[in-house]
């Protein structure tokens, strides 16, 4: 066990964990932040996505010991009231079906729009293709990203 001081959603948090515990379980089991989801544990589906210093990271395969001074933002920290443009677009465009992958999809899209505020279809494909939606909401995800980026 080791003690870590990490910055999560703008707050300094102290947590005791083994060094190789993935951030997913730190967030979900130790901090009570369940917005990032467990989908595979090998970084293959994107349900666990979080932002570290604005970039998308697969929390299921990122040990807490790798976080250091990185600023972690989870879906709970993107906005507290659903006011982030992507959250609004996903609601307005009625994207979710079962909803389980959606927080990861939104986090990935947020990282994309931060890097490329006006993404092309190819940019969207590249940023989002590692994110499986088993309900098949891809068409609406693409449209919602375009709405949030002002392209639609």
């Amino acid at each position, binding site marked *: 066990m080791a003690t870590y001081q990490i910055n999560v959603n703008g707050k300094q948090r102290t947590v005791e964990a083994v060094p190789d515990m993935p951030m997913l379980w730190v967030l979900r*089991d130790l901090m009570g932040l369940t917005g990032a989801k467990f989908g595979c544990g090998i970084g293959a589906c994107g349900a666990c996505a979080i932002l570290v210093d604005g970039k998308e990271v697969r929390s299921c395969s990122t040990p807490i010991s790798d976080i250091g001074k990185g600023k972690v933002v989870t*879906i709970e920290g993107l906005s507290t009231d659903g006011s982030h443009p992507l959250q609004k677009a996903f*609601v307005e465009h*009625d994207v979710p079906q079962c909803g389980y992958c959606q927080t990861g999809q*939104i986090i990935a899209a947020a990282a994309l729009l931060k890097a490329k505020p006006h993404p092309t279809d190819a940019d969207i494909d590249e940023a*989002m293709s590692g994110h499986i*939606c088993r309900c*098949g*909401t891809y*068409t609406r995800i693409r449209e919602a990203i375009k709405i949030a980026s002002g392209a639609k």
Partner: protein
Amino acid sequence: MVTDLTRRSFLKVVGGAGAAFVLGCYSAPASGLFKNSDKEAAQGFQPNAFIQIDPDGTVTVTVNKSDMGQGIRTTFAMIVAEEMDADWSKVKVAHAPPGGPAGGQGTGGSSSTRQMYGTLRQLGAGARAMLVAAAAKSWGVDAASCKCDTGKVMHPATGKSMSYGELTSKMAGVTAPDGDLKLKDKADFKILGKRTRRVDNKSVVTGTATFGIDVKLEGMLYAVVSRRPSFGASMGTVDDTATRKVPGVVDVVKISSGVAVVAQNTWAAMEGVRALKVTWDTGFNASVSTASIRAGLVEAAGTQPDLPAGVKAVKASIDFPYLAHATMEPMNAVADVRDDSCVIYSGTQSPDGAQRQTAQMLGLPAEKVTVHLTLLGGGFGRRSANDFVADAVQVSKAVKKPIKLVWTREDDMRNDHYRPMSYHSFQGAVDASGTPVAWNHVIINAGGRSGRGGPGRAGIPYAISGATQAGGAGPSPVPTGAWRSVEHSQIDVANECFIDEMAHAAGKDPLAFRVALARDERLKKVLTMAAEKAGWGTPLPKGHGRGIACFSGYGACIAHVMEVSVVGNEIKLHRMVAVVDPGLALNPQGVEAQVQGAAVDGMSTALKVGITIEKGGVVEGSWPDYPWMTMEEMPNQEVFVIDSGNDPSGMGEVGYPSGPPAIANAVFAATGKRVRKFPIKVSELV
């Protein structure tokens, strides 16, 4: 629309309504549907309530079905709110507790809307009638001279109006109406038939929606199970020395599905499983493989009968693999077993099944088992079995603590109740004029569906004289279950591939051939419209092909046109057009979503995924081996929803069966070669 499924809101609904006015009711009986339960409301207890109106005007609709992404919470609330003339912005949704009078909660077979539409309308109309009666009495006017709109009762002659919230304090002495009430004319609908967003959207996008895996109870421990490597394997020795040294591991217990490691967090439990040494005896299933199972299916199919002389014979076989459900949220459950009771939280398609099963396992009366239903991170039929609940119950009982038991992705993919593998033998014939004169489809399922072999309910929607369909089951140790569209996912997919071959043999256009033979006018219409929207018959680039297929079932009709290109060994999807006739589309936006989503299942299973059996177990373990469609592979999806005026159909399954054959037929159009096996590989075309 304000709603979110938090434990607090759930408890508020089931635990106490305070001074709220409650309409208690029963879903099953046609008569005596209503029970005025003012008294129950005062006591704050309402196990059978579908509708609750709070003094602030909030209307809470209790939904007795599981929402796994099909949007039934939204649809049911819309139906009730429509007949109530409720203010949609003040409608909330709660889940019904199991075992109450809300009726069976099993969710599957696209049955929810068809089963509950009439009942929910009556319940909404009854609530409205009682509110009108209360208002009329308070004003001293005739109830017939009042009308309702957006959560208010109005008396146009005097200009008086009162909100439903205000009326909750004036319900004393108002009795429930007798018999069936007159329902609204569809032309007067204000909520139903309108594109309406899902009630759970906001909680989903803020990460506050509660799935089974998100539940946390006081003092809860976490468990992960080390499972058998193959079906029917028996446990040998267990060495947990290393496991017990893993930081955070609390206990190791044997349960029916394997060895559970109990820990202070999920990661420690997973690490504990990795450190565990368990030996297994695979037994007689060691030699079972996809190839050995297939050999049994082919043998069971036998040979086709002789055809009369002078006809043009068409023969084909089609193979389907086992399919895993692979829901995004792996199986999981939270259980808190006490000496005389048990509380369960889970996303299950069968909450009352979970209650019965748990009561039986623990030797408790059913009412001592409480099952709190959460949202489901995908279902597709998988969550109709409650094996994950059984796991959590056994561990909680053993360690006497609340347990959250989580399956890993690999546990989930290798311990599913699979869509069966199947082998299909076809023989058909056309005469000199191109008219089909024979059709025989033999279907052999590996192990059958849910223990049943045979052809099930599916059949061809075409008028072919003397058409026959027969089926049976071949031996397999692999457990099977319902998967989106169930037997239609094999039988109708195969039929729509073979009808295309018949059209080709007849020298006819596949669209015209289908339309000429289709028995159902609704089916003809969706076929014709899909073709028109897709530009059927217009030229395509070299290497591209267009395929059509249709499906009629669950009260709906649908047709797909898919456009593909085949370059080398790569099949690429370019465009999908679907036209669906769901009868009355209660929520057209939801219907469109189901068709978009089911088509992605169609694309994934047509081109990419299948479960392989080796040494009696499942080879594939996670997404890299079972690669679902991704964003970059998606074609443009165009979905058209038309209203035939029929009663509303089910929608969860409808969008699947015509997708894969439309792709297979498009591959034929592009290459001149037929698909004999799913998932489609260019190297296996004939």
